[in-house]
Every structure is written in structure tokens, then in C-alpha cells.
């Protein structure tokens, strides 16, 4: 191996360690909050409801459904994704992001009130099919045939 190649290898390893270390120690809940903030920016949300969701989701270990690798994958995409650059498996990431933001919106009355953009969106309770069964807001209970 030439000296030049060796230096490049060491530098790449260093960058990789720093980036992965940063993701490991940065807070997944913060990434969740930022994603929700960004994707619901055009909605009229009652103040404080995103914080409440993030807090309750944390308490309920809602993101325990993602293992550490998946959390790193989501955060890497969230922080590095841009108009000019995106990591591989972007559609997988978007599916997870749909799930996270979906969980927030399903914890509010937005869908139950038929996505009405004119009213202020209220928080109901952390989306939980066992604590609040029969609350699928897209089902025929809310949209009869």
C-alpha cells in the first residue's frame, strides 16, 4: 500500500468513526421531533402538541420497535438527505418516516376530523390500538360507503 492510500484509508476511517459516533450519541427523539415539525409545518397545530407526543412516545418506548441499526439508518437519512444527495434505500427510509409522522398525526384529531385544514389540530392520546381500539380514522366508521 502506498503512503497516499494509507493516509486516505486512515482519514476515511476517522470520518466514519466520527459520523457514526455522532449518530450513536445524538438523540433519536430529537430527530423524531424535527421530522414531525418539518412534515407538519403547513398544518395548524395547537402549541406544544409535538413536544407532548415526543415525550409520551419516549415514555411508552414507542420507538423500541426500531433496533439501534434502524435508528441509525433513519437518522443518517434524515440528517444527510438533501435535494442534491441522498443515501441508498431512500424509499425504505421514507416508509419509516411515514410511520413516525403517521404516529404523531394518528395521536391527534386531524384524520378523525377529515383532514380539515381550517381548524386547529388537537392532541388526543398517544396512538395505541389496545388503549384506544377502533380508532382507525380511515376506516368505514369514519368514511361509511
Amino acid at each position, binding site marked *: 500500500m502506498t503512503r497516499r492510500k494509507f493516509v486516505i484509508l486512515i482519514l476515511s476511517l476517522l470520518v466514519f468513526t466520527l459520523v457514526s459516533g455522532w449518530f450513536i450519541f445524538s438523540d433519536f427523539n430529537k430527530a423524531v421531533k424535527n421530522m414531525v415539525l418539518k412534515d407538519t409545518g403547513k398544518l395548524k397545530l395547537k402549541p406544544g402538541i409535538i413536544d407532548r407526543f415526543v415525550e409520551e412516545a419516549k415514555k411508552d418506548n414507542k420507538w423500541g420497535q426500531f433496533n439501534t441499526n434502524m435508528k441509525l439508518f433513519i437518522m443518517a437519512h434524515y440528517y444527510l438527505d438533501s435535494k442534491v444527495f441522498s443515501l441508498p434505500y431512500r424509499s425504505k427510509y421514507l416508509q419509516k418516516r411515514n410511520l413516525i409522522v403517521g404516529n404523531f398525526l394518528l395521536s391527534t384529531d386531524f384524520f378523525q376530523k377529515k383532514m380539515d385544514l381550517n381548524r386547529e389540530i388537537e392532541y388526543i392520546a398517544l396512538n395505541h390500538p389496545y388503549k384506544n381500539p377502533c380508532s382507525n380514522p380511515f376506516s*368505514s366508521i369514519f368514511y361509511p360507503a
Partner: protein
Amino acid sequence: MNDDGYDLILVGTGFASIFFLKKYLEKKPKAKVLVLERGRLYSHANRLQDVIDKKDTASQTWRSKRSEIINPNSEKDWVFEPNFGGGSNCWTGCTPRFLESDFKLKTNYGIAVDWPVSYEELEPYYCMAEEIMAISGPADTPFKKSKKYPLPPHELSNLDILLKKKYGDLYISQPSARASSAIGNRAKCCSSSVCQLCPVNSKFTIENTLKYIVEKEQITIQYEAQVTHLELKGDLAGAVHYNSGNKSFKARGEVVALGANAIFNAHILLGSGDSNPFTGKGLTEQVGKYVWLYFDGLDNLGGSSVITANGYMMYDGDHRKERAACLIENHNRPFIRSEFGKWRQLAKLKFVYEDLPQDTNAVTLSEDKNKPLVDYHHHSPYVEKAIARLEKDVEKYFSFLPIERVEIDDRVQRSEAHILGTTRMSHDATTGVIDKHLIHHQYRNLFVLGGGSFPTISPANPTLTLSALSLLAADQSFS
């Protein structure tokens, strides 16, 4: 009755066993029966409480990280529920019938084999099974029915209505054991979409509908009793050996019926020295792939259950001469698309393909005599050929919708939760393990129930069919 034993020893308490027992007791109401169940009675109420209390691993005993089997294939899961009621506790309740052609692949398409039983013979038993499970389903179906479904169909979503308009009887409200109106101990399904443990006890389970059978006076049920092997002598099965606690026991029955599922039935037979060359071979299940449709301007709303419809457009036809049939499911969970104004402009479809049994996929004995080795390698090229054209097929059947983009999962699902084909039925012992009454070709008092009996598997969910086969077996074997 057998002096020193039971008229019937039944192994397991899932669909295969309990449907068999129901019909058997109608024929022999005074029979003395021993039921051996390897697990415990873990009630719906206790499971619900455990989920709410966050003891998730306790309630999800069906999950895939299994200690009961040896599975060297890291790409493949085998999921089942080893407790009272078996898979009925965690199933989704999808109950399409097989099509007539599923029983005749050889005759119709020159592929694999025909079943020794025909759709016409099974039809009355399909009706009985549907009655017992109070199936919700539509009037018009791609398969012939002599009786209406007991409950009305689930409501279609607005996407389903468009597809129904285009494809007629090839696109139907999914027949299901999720009740479209309250019945017995079961509430109306309200689309909570967590059917692995229904919060309102809507789907049929053995516990909510048929538990009374094992409570009859002449039935002895023993929990935490794991059957290890049978004594096979001449043309009969003799004593049934089982472990309970740290002790071993044996019991005698005039008739023995195994309903432990396709992995464990085969394992028990192999552990008993069954020398039929097909026992354990041909382990098969369907192969599933998800597709997301992102719409431009079409909101996907309505529908009264978790899977609203089945599409038969890619199921039957001459293509089966060379590639697998496919059944489409429209999944109606509360998923969203995180894009302003397009929140619900997407659909999640599952394309479920049949597979052909291959002898190299097999259940065998392992060094641990209590655990089967589940030696599954890969699905067949017959499925691969069908999956290879999925993109084209989606284009062909769905492009009339306002689709913005399509996303096809890069991988197939790790499991369809259907364990099939290890004790195939056939006309004689040169081509299979059991006959059309699910009786072992050699041991004539031994029934081997369940989806292990399927010689080919169809893309349709198997449980209604295996329950109907249990009813047929008990009805036609006892007077």
C-alpha cells in the same frame, strides 16, 4: 371404548384438531377423548392485559424467534402459536376458499399433482367450516358456493370500489373470520388492524367459539403435555408418548389424531420411526411481496376491516403452466404518506404467490430429540418466474388508477405464516403419506391433520381449507 384407554387421543388444540373433534363427537357423542396440548391456556383476556402492561413478549408467543425448532436458514421464519387454540389466537382471519383448479393442477396445467379430493367433495365441508367460524363474505365469488356466507361482506374502500368496477367478480370483499357484525362472543370488527391479538375479540378463535367442546365431561385435556412419539406396530398406531413437567407418560387410544401443525406432525412421525419416504418432505408456504401505490389525487378511504379485498386477476389461467398463481390482498391499516395534502394518497397491496413443494425443503430429526430441524432452502423457480414480472403485472392491472409512483419491496416476506406440505395426501403410499381422509396409508387408525396434508398449496390462505378437511375426515371415517 378401549378398556385401558381412550377412544381417541387428539394431539394439539388448533383448527385441525378442534374441527376434527367437533365432527367426531357429533358422530360418537359418548366417546372418551384425551386431548394433549403442549402449551397452556393463555386466555384472550390475559393476553390483552399483558399487552397493556407492556409484557409484549409474553403476549406475542407466536413470534418468529423460536426455541421449539432448529432453523438454520437466517432468511426464513416459521411462525406458529404453541398454546391452546394454536394459530387461531394470532391469525388474521383471512378465509378465501381454494379455487376448483387448485385441486387439479396436473389435469389443468400439467404441473405437480392433483389432490385425491376434489373441490366438489369438499364443498359441503367448506360450508360447515364457514358456518362454524361465521365467515363474513360477498354473494359473488370466483369459486362456486352452495350456501351464502353466514355474515354480510365487509365494506369495500373507495379504492376497492374502483377495482371492483374494473374487475367484477375477480375482485371481491375478502371472505374473513373477522365478524362484519357482532355474533356469539365476538364483537363487530372495527378495523383496529392488530389482528395478531384483536382488542375487541372480533375474529374467530378456538377460545371464543369452540372452547366448550374440550369442556365436555368425557374429554380430558392435559396442558403442557408435549407428544414425543407414537408406538407404531404393523398397521396400527399404539401408545402415545408425551412429556409433562419433567416426567414421561404414555396413553392408549383406539384412534390417534395428530394436529400439531405441519412441522410437528412430521417430527412426531419421524421420531416414531415412520418410514414413508415422503414424511417430512415438501415443506412449503406461499411467498409474499408488498407493493405501495402512491396516488395523485386519489385518497384511499373507507373499508371496514384490516384487509378489505382479494384480487383474483393474477390467480387462475394458463400462466400456471409455467409460473405461480397470485392472490392480491388490499391492506387497510392506518398508514400514511408524510406529504402535505397527500396524507392518504397511497395503498399497500400484498401479492401472495403459490409455491410448488420441493423434496429438498424438509422437516427432519435433529440431535435434540425434542426439536425438529426445519431444513428449508428456497422457494421454487416457479415462484421466481412469477415474481420476476411483478412490475409488469402491476402496470397491467393497476395503471388505470391515477398512480404517481410504485414501490415494490426489494425482498419477499420472511414468512407467510402458513406451514404446509410435509405429510402430503395421495391415492396411495407410493406417492404420499396419507389418504384423502387424512389417514396414514400404513397406520390405519392414525389421522394426520392440518396443512401438512396439502399436496400443492394454492396462493389462498390455508386455514379454512384445512379445517374443512378435518370435518370431512371425521364425517366420512366414523359412523
